[in-house]
């Protein structure tokens, strides 16, 4: 596990050096007002209906059963956004941004393909193509191409390997915490399941996890700030926040990178998803606290920032047999930042009366329309380039209007 010192050392040392040292400020002269963009990829398919629950939809509560969010005002109830929609209580850390008009929810979004395979859907979400053939680079990298001047790196991959969305012809910087770290709970569960019949590895893993959680408890209790740094650089929900803090500092630097992509996993909640609390709630909490930390560490630069989240697809409307949800169709995007015209829910609401294949929320808004608007209005990319190169063959998908402050 990384200590606070490791992280600070990294921020002050190697990571900053690779990301920023060689970037003269002049490299950004051509970018409108040094604007920042952060794309957060929620891998595993986030349940949009749990994140922002359509409490006003009469079909919601009956279809969602015991996973339905309780109305605002009740214990563990949702946080009211509009009269019809409520934020999951574990996302409380981003609620204030809604109040300040800096958080926009685009509900019922999809990425323009029909597949329920995580691998394929993530490849397409990141490539920006509508077929799996010939994927070599990501749309965010192609979006960097006209912005990138000289050999200095404008793009930043946060946390480990560069994700497909940022891979391509334009070189990008990367930041990763040192060492290797605690595994994500979902992954540990999956491994434990595979080890269940293994007389050697099974009991050892169980015993080891027990010992680990004991020592974590002791450390968190005895070290000031121990809990905050727990999981720094790891893979669980708490690992997201330190990464966001690091990303914010790097992006805030005057001569730092401007366009970042980061991952957060743990969204594939087939089992014991829980309404509140539960595994999904813990993930929401880590996610929201991370975004809040990102805003804080960006400081003044927050004004010029757009953060957008996306996931490969949504989850089934109904609860499955293991108190979770299965692979669905539409989910939602959070658009957050000082440059965002927020405090509202954008996009049409398709309703839950008619479901996609009688199981999923239908797509009302193509995510590429949202991204096109941000790339055009925030970063100044040309509409023609967006429709032909960044998201090829998408002339019919218009940039969504009015997402950003004028």
């Amino acid at each position, binding site marked *: 596990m990384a200590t606070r010192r490791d992280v600070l050392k990294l921020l002050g040392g190697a990571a900053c050096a690779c990301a920023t040292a060689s970037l003269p400020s002049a490299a950004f002269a051509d970018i409108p007002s040094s604007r920042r963009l952060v794309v957060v990829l929620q*891998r*595993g*398919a986030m349940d949009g209906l749990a994140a922002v629950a359509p409490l006003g939809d009469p079909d919601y509560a009956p279809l969602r059963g015991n996973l339905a969010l309780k109305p605002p005002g009740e214990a563990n109830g949702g946080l009211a956004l509009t009269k019809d929609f409520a934020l999951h209580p574990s996302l409380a850390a981003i609620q204030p941004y809604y109040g300040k008009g800096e958080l926009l929810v685009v509900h019922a979004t999809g990425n323009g393909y029909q597949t329920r395979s*995580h*691998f394929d859907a*993530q490849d397409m979400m990141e490539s920006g193509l509508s077929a799996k053939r010939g994927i070599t680079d990501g749309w965010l990298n192609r979006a960097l191409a006209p912005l990138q001047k000289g050999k200095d790196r404008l793009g930043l991959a946060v946390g*480990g*390997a*560069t994700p497909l969305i940022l891979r391509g012809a334009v070189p990008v910087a990367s930041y*990763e915490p040192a*060492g*290797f*770290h*605690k*595994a*994500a709970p*979902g*992954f*540990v569960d*999956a*491994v434990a*399941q*595979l*080890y269940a019949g*293994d007389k*050697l*590895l099974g009991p*050892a*893993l*169980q*015993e*080891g*996890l*027990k*010992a*680990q959680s004991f020592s974590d408890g002791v450390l968190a209790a005895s070290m000031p700030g121990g809990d905050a740094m727990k999981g720094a650089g790891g*893979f669980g929900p708490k690992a997201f926040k330190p990464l966001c803090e690091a990303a914010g500092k790097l992006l805030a630097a005057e001569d730092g990178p401007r366009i970042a992509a980061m991952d957060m*996993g743990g*969204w*594939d909640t087939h089992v014991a998803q829980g309404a509140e609390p539960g595994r999904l709630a813990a993930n929401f909490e880590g996610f929201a606290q991370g975004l809040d930390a990102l805003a804080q560490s960006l400081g003044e630069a927050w004004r010029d920032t757009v953060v957008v989240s996306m996931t490969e697809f949504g989850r089934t409307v109904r609860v499955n047999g293991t108190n979770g949800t299965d692979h669905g169709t539409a989910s939602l995007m959070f658009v957050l930042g000082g440059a965002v015209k927020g405090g509202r829910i954008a996009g049409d609401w398709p309703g839950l009366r008619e479901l996609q294949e009688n199981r999923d929320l239908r797509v009302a808004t193509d995510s590429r329309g949202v991204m096109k608007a941000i790339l055009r209005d925030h970063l100044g990319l040309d509409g023609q380039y967006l429709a032909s190169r960044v998201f090829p063959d998408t002339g019919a998908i218009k940039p969504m209007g009015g997402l950003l402050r004028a």
Partner: protein
Amino acid sequence: MPAPMAAVIAATRFGFAPKPGELATIAGDPRGWVAAQLNRRSDFSPTGLSPGPEMVAAMLAARRDKEERPELKERLKATYLAELDARMRAAILGDAPVLERLTQFWSNHFTVSGMRPFVRGVTGAFEREAIRPHVTGRFLEMLMAVTAHPGMLLYLDNAQSFGPDSIAGRRQSKGLNENLGRELLELHTLGVDGGYTQADVEALARILTGWTVAPLRDWRPGTFRFFQQIHEPGDKVLLGRTYHNGGIDEGEAALRDLAAHPATARHIATQFARHFIADTPPADSVERIARVFRDTGGDLKQVTLAVLREEAVWREPFAKVRTPTELLISAYRVVGTKPEPGLAFMALKKLDQPPFLAPSPAGWPDVASAWVSPESVVRRTEWCQTFAERLADVPDPVDVMASAYGEALPEEVQRAVRHAPDKRAGLALLIASPQFQRR
């Protein structure tokens, strides 16, 4: 047994793991593939690596001159990473993985560990110079090369062992160091139950006095040197045989006799069977392998082929738990990429098997109980996820599973990999699976 299982065993037990596309070429004739590997040229490349004596000389210089030390420190680090990288490259990307496994097996049998700082710069060179050339040759040739290598002579103190009655020993009142003599009998040849006594240990130590490393003032510092003036005079009796007063020939004769000793055949056969068959190998397998060792005069290619003929090898898939080193090499090999040496070192350090740094002359343990503890299994699980998260280019885990195992994995593992939430998670699960944790 699913169709490709014999190929999986050949690839994982004798190599490390199939690299992309390799399993298909093994499947036609798994035994034949292993046998053919023994006739291959190694694709290990020592380009840019310093010869052992050069490193020894640099260390001798730094011992004498303080000013040399900072530079040596840098050089040691660079050398370590370069040696590790060359070894990893051959094991992960190369086409002769069986030769690489044999190299690592024998290098572990004849451990020279950088845990003794004075040999830190020469551990990789030792493996290249004393082990590599002989893995399909004669045991005696390897034993000679090992015992005369400056790395071993320094690691087990023989370089400083003086015959008490030798000219130099009497003049400087220096005496015997029996470290190498003991380990030669206990670890390298006869085995701890090989029927030798303390008197035999001392006799062998006396026989080996004078086997040392050329000092800085020598015309070739850092190389092997026999100095008659520190060799103990007089006859020595080792294992009931008298070695008459001589010089380097005493040691050569003793090594010849030790290599031909039936206890050595049994000891090597046991270790081979433990490595290639099971932690507790069948006694009859050990007996047959030992017989081949004896009958062929320690021809290591024939001994390896003898293991291949053991039915027990092919009966039980996944019989051995992979050591951390095997796990790391195999994981990278199945995806076809090599980690940076610094990253590999950090990972193996955390997994308690830093390369070239075994805790004792006995080397790393070769049984599951040494590698499977509650803490270590958690860390291995963590590493599996880290490995997948850090890969620059993540392949489809379903493709990796197919190319590494065909259909040989249990349905539940195949399902878990197919249904993982993303490619990295799928790959991590494959690597963490009970089957990939073994070979």
